[in-house]
């Protein structure tokens, strides 16, 4: 479990990024942290694996207080996939890349092999085992970065802006992959500003603005509240925009799913006939 209590954080250049954040994340949850660029989302999640330490307040991950342990210790539990895979890739082969963290954590050779196999299969990368990561396409490099972070089987996985630059099919595959991770019992936290993606995943949503959490709850509730959404400088999902415009016709406004929307409309249309 992750407990974030009254966390304040200011960067060395004086920018106050977090001003009193309180958040609890249960094991196995799927959470999306949303907000405008600069709201403090990435700053917040960097506190979970100890990359940043709070200036005031505490962050406790599974009974480990982040100010008292090293990043490496926390990293055993918290896998953090950065936005740009090219900030991580450096090895001669995909295999070496995926085994990097495992060696850092002191896994023995047999365990390293087993974990690498598992990770490569999970991400469909087995055929690229001996290939240099620099020879792969953008999408494939993202998968290598994912594989290298999942290799040591952390129970919490944080993905920072995983949908940037991805096409529709890649996003759909990502969405299913996240569900798979969640089914494996992992806690998944994504930092994103991609409304439509979150509307399809329907996680618990934490909305941030100017270093504070302004709302949290089910996606259907949070993403359909026009006031909250504009406060966080985010936009409503297109389906919600439609239903908000049709409010006067007596339609519900907390709709984010296109299939659900179709059902509601079909009912109403057949009723009126």
């Amino acid at each position, binding site marked *: 479990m992750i407990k974030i209590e009254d966390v304040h954080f200011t960067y060395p250049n004086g920018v106050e990024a977090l001003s009193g954040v309180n958040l609890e994340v249960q094991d196995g949850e799927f959470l999306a942290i949303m907000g*405008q*660029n*600069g709201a403090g989302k990435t700053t917040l999640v960097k506190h979970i694996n100890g990359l940043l330490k709070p200036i005031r307040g505490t962050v406790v991950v599974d009974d480990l207080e982040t100010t008292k342990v090293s990043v490496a210790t926390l990293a055993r539990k918290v896998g953090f996939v950065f936005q740009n895979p090219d900030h991580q890739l450096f090895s001669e082969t995909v295999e070496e890349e995926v085994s990097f963290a495992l060696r850092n954590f002191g896994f023995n050779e047999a365990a390293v092999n087993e974990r690498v196999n598992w990770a490569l299969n999970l991400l469909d990368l087995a055929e690229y085992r001996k290939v240099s990561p620099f020879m792969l*396409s*953008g*999408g494939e490099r993202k998968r290598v970065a994912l594989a290298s972070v999942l290799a040591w089987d952390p129970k919490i996985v944080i993905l920072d802006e995983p949908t*940037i*630059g*991805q*096409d*529709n*099919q*890649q*996003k*759909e595959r990502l969405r299913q992959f996240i569900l798979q991770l969640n089914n494996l019992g992992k806690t998944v936290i994504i930092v994103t*500003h*991609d*409304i*439509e993606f979150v509307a399809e995943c329907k996680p618990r949503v934490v909305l941030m603005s100017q270093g504070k959490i302004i709302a949290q709850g089910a996606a259907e509730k949070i993403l359909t509240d026009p006031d909250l959404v504009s406060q966080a*400088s*985010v*936009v409503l*999902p*297109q*389906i919600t*925009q*439609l239903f908000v*415009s*049709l409010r006067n*016709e007596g339609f519900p406004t907390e709709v984010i799913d*296109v*299939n659900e*929307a*179709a059902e509601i*409309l*079909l009912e*109403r*249309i057949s009723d*009126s006939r």
Partner: protein
Amino acid sequence: MPIIETKNLTYTYPIGTKPAFEDVTINVEKGEFIVLTGPSGCGKTTLCRCFNGLIPHFYSGKLEGEIAVSDLRVVEHQIHELAQHVGMVFQNPENQLFALSVEKDVAFGLENLGMSRKEMRERVDWALKTTGIFELKDRAPYELSGGQQQRVAIASVLAMQPKIIIFDEPTSFLDPMGAQKIFEVINRLNKEIGITIILVEHRLDLTSKYANRVIIMDKGRILLDGPPKEILSSEEARLIGVGIPKATRLYQILKDKGVNLGKIPLSAEEAAETLTEALTH
């Protein structure tokens, strides 16, 4: 005369085993607003680089077929000449700004052309005002947000007054509000100044409403080419897997279940209009 004409255009990268795109034959008329989309790796980014001469002059490799832009055969003219007819805005705002102040960046292209200081000053101010960033002219690039940086990049291209501007996924790194602002600027350039626009994007929900034409590529070929409403509501578009706007998807689902709304919506506003009509009649 079309402003861009290609015939059986095929290109293979120097280290490529198969062509990045092949047999591309399209005509672009002056003043069009084209959204070019398709799954990653379909060749759209590579195709764009042919329009301003980066291919074949900057990137070697094999280019076959014909391509002419603004009546100039691309193969026969240097990039710096083509750059005066075709501007290009790239994905990463940070890597398009090199000067230490915004207005110096906007003047960069004009300085390269050896323009007089007086004329440069006029054009720079005009470009800054048109993109809505005149107040930022003395700021340094690292002080700006991603959206502001991208507007500087657009102003820098605009200052050269090209007839065509190509945007290669310009909003990838921006949040939805920042992206929206950029699309509004691009739309203004097209509707108010008459610049021909080719916009490569995945975010069809935000862009298709501005376009008069959508081209979908897959695996190096052009598969669909036509008006947005027609293309995006088609079954083929859905099967290719591009990000069809939810409003259009809604229209498709209702149609499949026997309810034809008549007018195809690309945005929430259009869908609301169409539905209100359908419900009140």
